[in-house]
């Protein structure tokens, strides 16, 4: 019993350390935002935006089309032909939850392990030390552009997913109910509230920051051994997922 309690205490302590150090890293990265004016930092930011954002658009678009289609078909099966309720469900599910969450999941699956293993390999090869010796801050050169790039990518991908999924949902719905698409669009804009859009933006930003900070933290926190690289990547993915769902739960409980 005592051993179990000690183990629980130890595990909670480690989670606490992750939260504390992750927040400290994010704070340092925010403090180094002015370094974005330096060309190498800007290049790292563009590369991150390209990798996490633009190169993910295909997957997010495909998932968006399928999500909109599946959701509308399921809602029709469940409640019958009810245009307004279908639109409500689309807003509840796609705008409030699935948009930010699925964009974050795509970013986690593509970028989180990539960043963590890249930084971990650099740490193992002594490249982070090389940067320090050249007077290049790893936080401003490696961490900040990644956090900024992934946060912007998360925001843009969530918006893109929402547009694609809701567009597909409305097209399928208007085809199944034999309605004019323009009427559906007008109804959608009447129904959606400013709060819902704001919370979706807030969630996307929070998820982007959490995923990027966790990936960078686990990449940089490893000891100098090659076997630590895959561990860093898997920790980054699992903890990012967990943290994103916790954050989603907290925001949803606070605002809805």
């Amino acid at each position, binding site marked *: 019993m005592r051993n179990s309690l000690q183990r629980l205490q130890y595990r909670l302590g480690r989670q606490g350390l992750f939260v504390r150090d992750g927040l400290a890293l994010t704070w340092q990265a925010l403090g180094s935002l002015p370094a974005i004016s330096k060309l190498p930092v800007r*290049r790292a930011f563009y590369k991150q935006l390209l990798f996490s954002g633009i190169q993910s658009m295909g997957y997010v678009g495909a998932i968006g089309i399928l999500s909109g289609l599946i959701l509308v078909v399921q809602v029709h099966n469940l409640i019958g032909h009810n245009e307004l309720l279908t639109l409500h469900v689309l807003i509840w599910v796609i705008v409030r939850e699935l948009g930010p969450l699925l964009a974050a999941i795509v970013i986690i699956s593509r970028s989180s392990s990539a960043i963590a293993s890249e930084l971990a390999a650099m740490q193992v090869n002594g*490249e982070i030390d090389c940067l320090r010796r*050249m007077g290049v801050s790893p936080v401003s050169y490696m961490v900040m552009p990644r956090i900024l790039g992934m946060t912007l990518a998360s925001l843009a991908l969530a918006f893109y997913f929402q547009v694609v999924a809701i567009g597909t949902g409305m097209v399928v719905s208007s085809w199944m109910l034999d309605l004019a698409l323009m009427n559906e669009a007008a109804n959608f804009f009447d129904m959606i509230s400013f709060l819902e859009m704001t919370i979706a933006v807030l969630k996307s930003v929070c998820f982007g920051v959490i995923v990027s900070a966790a990936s960078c933290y686990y990449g940089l926190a490893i000891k100098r051994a090659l076997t630590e690289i895959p561990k860093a990547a898997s920790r980054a993915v699992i903890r990012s997922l967990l943290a994103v769902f916790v954050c989603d739960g907290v925001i949803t409980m606070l605002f809805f």
Partner: protein
Amino acid sequence: MTVLLQFDGVACPDLARPYSFSLNEGDARLLKVASEAEKDAVIGVALGKRRCTEGVILVQGVPLDESRPGCIGWVAANGGLISNLKVWENVTLPLWYHGKHTAAETEQRVAQWLSVLGMVEADREPFMASPPDRLLSLQRKLAGLMRALVQSPLVLVVDSAVFKGVDPRMAAVWETALERYAAQGGAVLAVSDDEAALPWKIIE
């Protein structure tokens, strides 16, 4: 002569003894140390990455902590390249991180040092476009040396192990390049734990 770098009774746990010396504008000097650990410690202290427990390091009379970032450059033993950047990005990283320079000016600087280091024009473009993992050990060292020379700091700290395994003719070219760099108004401090090191004046 302006004193560019001054070690005044500098001590830290890995150093066998406290170090006191100064480097003037135009100097290229060799500091011999007892072991590799001590060499790393001296380089770390000179670059401001290790705290000294006693003494002070001055750059142009200003404490190292308060000097402008990038005023001391570094040549690593193995080139010290960043693996996810191409050679061109590696070479320009400290230059563009610590200051604002146009692409044309940078290209001119790179071309000038490449010709000093004896690289023929036909080899330059593939070399600059190559990722570090496709380079030979010698080419990696050359890229590291280029990076430091192009950055053009006040003082260049050289790990003299960069000359290990380099054929004597090439090593002579690199030494000449470093001397030329010092002659242009900088200073070079080579740190060595090896007996057969550079033929420069040794710091006592």
